């Protein structure tokens, strides 16, 4: 386990080392430079390893590190929400893992998260047990494997689900990043794409554009599939007693353990592409984990909708919050969806009409396209709207391009926000937001009738609103 830092630092210093090698060979005394180049990272890595230590004292976990800049990070054990075991390829060769502790400090940034790098796999799983259960467990590696086997496998990745990858936005994101890197290195290395204008002219401009678009599309699809496989290969969701274990990754493997008591709900993501392909994804709303740590809360990667529904029913202990019909929001909410989509679309269309009149008739189709897009969005956003209160869960759905259905246990609602603009108040609508300490920190029910909003909030958390309600005499509070 001594090796991991030096090896990783060597990799990080590789460009510098190459430079030193080149430089060293052109002058005398190259050996000394090389020694320095290899030695410094190794010494730094050793120093980091030797100065990092951790301990679990009465109810707290502490990590101390640093030779010159010392720092101590500590957290109470009962604030430990998740434990992540990550192993990069180097770690895996050496049989090591990095253990990360999610403590749910909303203010803490990634830098300050408790992390222990270079633990052996056995030590890490033992430590995980202690962190999550607060007791010293005498489990050996074999016992851990046995417990895992005794657990109930809820979901394993089916390689056919890769077909959903091109329908997620991750492909576009990876392609964008890759394009940036390629453009950057092409620029620094002064490789400029040479375009043979003659052959381009022979092909024709239209064919060239079509070919280019197809090429881009294909690249995005391939990158999306590769990205999907890299993160989700060998995905397994396992339930042991009161815990959920997620394992995934092709080269870098990642194991996350969530405490069932901290899972306050689920969020089903159905962005338009996935919805079109009949898929969805599922993540847990974990008390104390916000969306910056959302990698820790994935329960189902993009997969068929039926799988997502099955797993969420198992996580919530009831299928109703996910499958039951939602209460719609009425004609006023319908009208509001339409005005909100059509006013901007109408503005664009008007601009396009003016441009069509003044500049070129080529702008005219743009006007029609803007109106059509607005109408499609309005209709889809309207169809998404819905809420319900079933089996102790507040369920809300909204959105079109990024549609989400969220089910939050009412015991995890830690407050209500009711927001209404003057337009909304005029027609008696309001947004109802249930705030919570996990996931996106809120579950939003959009454009609800004011009375229905009060009713929903009062039914979800009966004692909280009671004092602030106006009640006509004689009518009992439900």
């Amino acid at each position, binding site marked *: 386990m001594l090796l991991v830092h030096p090896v990783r630092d060597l990799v990080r210093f590789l460009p510098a080392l190459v430079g030193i090698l080149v430089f060293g060979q052109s002058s005398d005394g190259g050996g000394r430079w090389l020694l320095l180049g290899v030695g410094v990272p190794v010494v730094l890595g050793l120093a980091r390893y030797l100065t990092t230590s951790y301990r679990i004292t009465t109810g707290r976990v502490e990590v101390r590190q640093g030779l010159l800049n010392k720092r101590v990070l500590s957290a109470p054990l009962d604030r430990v929400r998740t434990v992540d075991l990550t192993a990069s390829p180097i770690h895996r060769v050496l049989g090591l893992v990095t253990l990360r502790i999610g403590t749910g400090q909303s203010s803490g940034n990634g830098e300050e998260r408790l992390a222990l790098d270079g633990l052996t796999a056995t030590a890490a799983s033992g430590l995980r047990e202690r962190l999550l259960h607060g007791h010293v467990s005498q489990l050996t590696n074999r016992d851990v494997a046995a417990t895992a086997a005794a657990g109930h496998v809820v979901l394993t990745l089916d390689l056919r689900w890769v077909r959903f990858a091109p329908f997620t936005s991750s492909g576009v994101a990876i392609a964008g990043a890759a394009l940036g890197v390629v453009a950057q290195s092409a620029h620094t290395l002064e490789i400029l794409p040479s375009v043979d204008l003659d052959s381009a002219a022979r092909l024709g401009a239209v064919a060239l554009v079509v070919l280019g678009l197809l090429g881009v599309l294909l690249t995005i699809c391939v990158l999306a599939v590769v990205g999907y496989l890299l993160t989700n290969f060998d995905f397994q969701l396992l339930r042991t007693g009161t815990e959920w274990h997620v394992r995934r990754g092709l080269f870098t493997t990642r194991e996350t353990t969530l405490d069932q008591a901290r899972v306050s709900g689920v969020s089903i993501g159905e962005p338009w592409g996935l919805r079109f392909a009949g898929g969805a994804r599922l993540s847990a709303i974990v008390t104390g984990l916000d969306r910056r740590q959302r990698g820790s809360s994935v329960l189902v990667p993009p997969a068929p909708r039926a799988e997502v529904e099955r797993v969420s029913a198992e996580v919530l202990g009831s299928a109703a919050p996910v499958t039951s019909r939602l209460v719609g929001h009425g004609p006023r909410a319908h009208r509001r969806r339409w005005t909100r989509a059509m006013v901007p679309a109408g503005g664009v269309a008007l601009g396009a009409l003016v441009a069509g009149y003044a500049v070129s008739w080529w702008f005219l189709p743009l006007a029609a396209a803007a109106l059509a897009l607005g109408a499609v969005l309005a209709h889809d956003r309207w169809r998404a709207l819905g809420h319900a209160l079933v089996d102790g869960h507040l369920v809300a759905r909204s959105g079109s391009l990024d549609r989400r259905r969220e089910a939050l246990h009412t015991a995890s609602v830690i407050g209500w926000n009711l927001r209404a603009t003057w337009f909304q108040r005029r027609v008696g609508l309001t947004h109802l937001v249930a705030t919570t300490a996990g996931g996106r920190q809120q579950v939003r029910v959009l454009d609800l009738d004011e009375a229905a909003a009060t009713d929903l909030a009062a039914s979800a958390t009966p004692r909280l609103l009671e004092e602030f309600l106006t009640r*006509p005499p004689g009518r009992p509070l439900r």
Partner: protein
Amino acid sequence: MSQPVRLRPPLERVASRARWMWMCTDLLRWVPVTAVVLLGNGPWGWFDLPTWALAAYAVVLLAYVVLVPQWRYVVHRWEMTESAVYTQAGWWARERRIAPMSRVQTVDHREGVIARLFGLATVRITTASSAGALTIEGLDRERALALVDDLTRIADSVPGDAT
């Protein structure tokens, strides 16, 4: 048909001096734009605005600075009970927030420069959700300090880790 159950507004208003504070902050917010309009039109000669445009700008600014604070004063309200805090704020968009005492994590007392000119303070109550902080602007300073004391006392007496 019987009237449905509704959420009533919170009972207590903020200090009436808060209107003057909001007027000052709103005025200050418009200073950069106004400076650019006046200087650009006059000494710097960037553009040449017709008199009616300047007049319209003045009218809009005046209306904003005079009316919006009044509107805010009508909307801004708060209430604290043994079990919950309830606030209402905003003007165009009205936001009502309710948090139970058992979920209160921190209680802040702040006095900005302009608020201090008027002897006012802001009380901010945070919960474990970053979307759920309650803010009461424009409270009388003494009232705010008393409120902070009460809030801390009640929130401390409720067990649990507030998540």
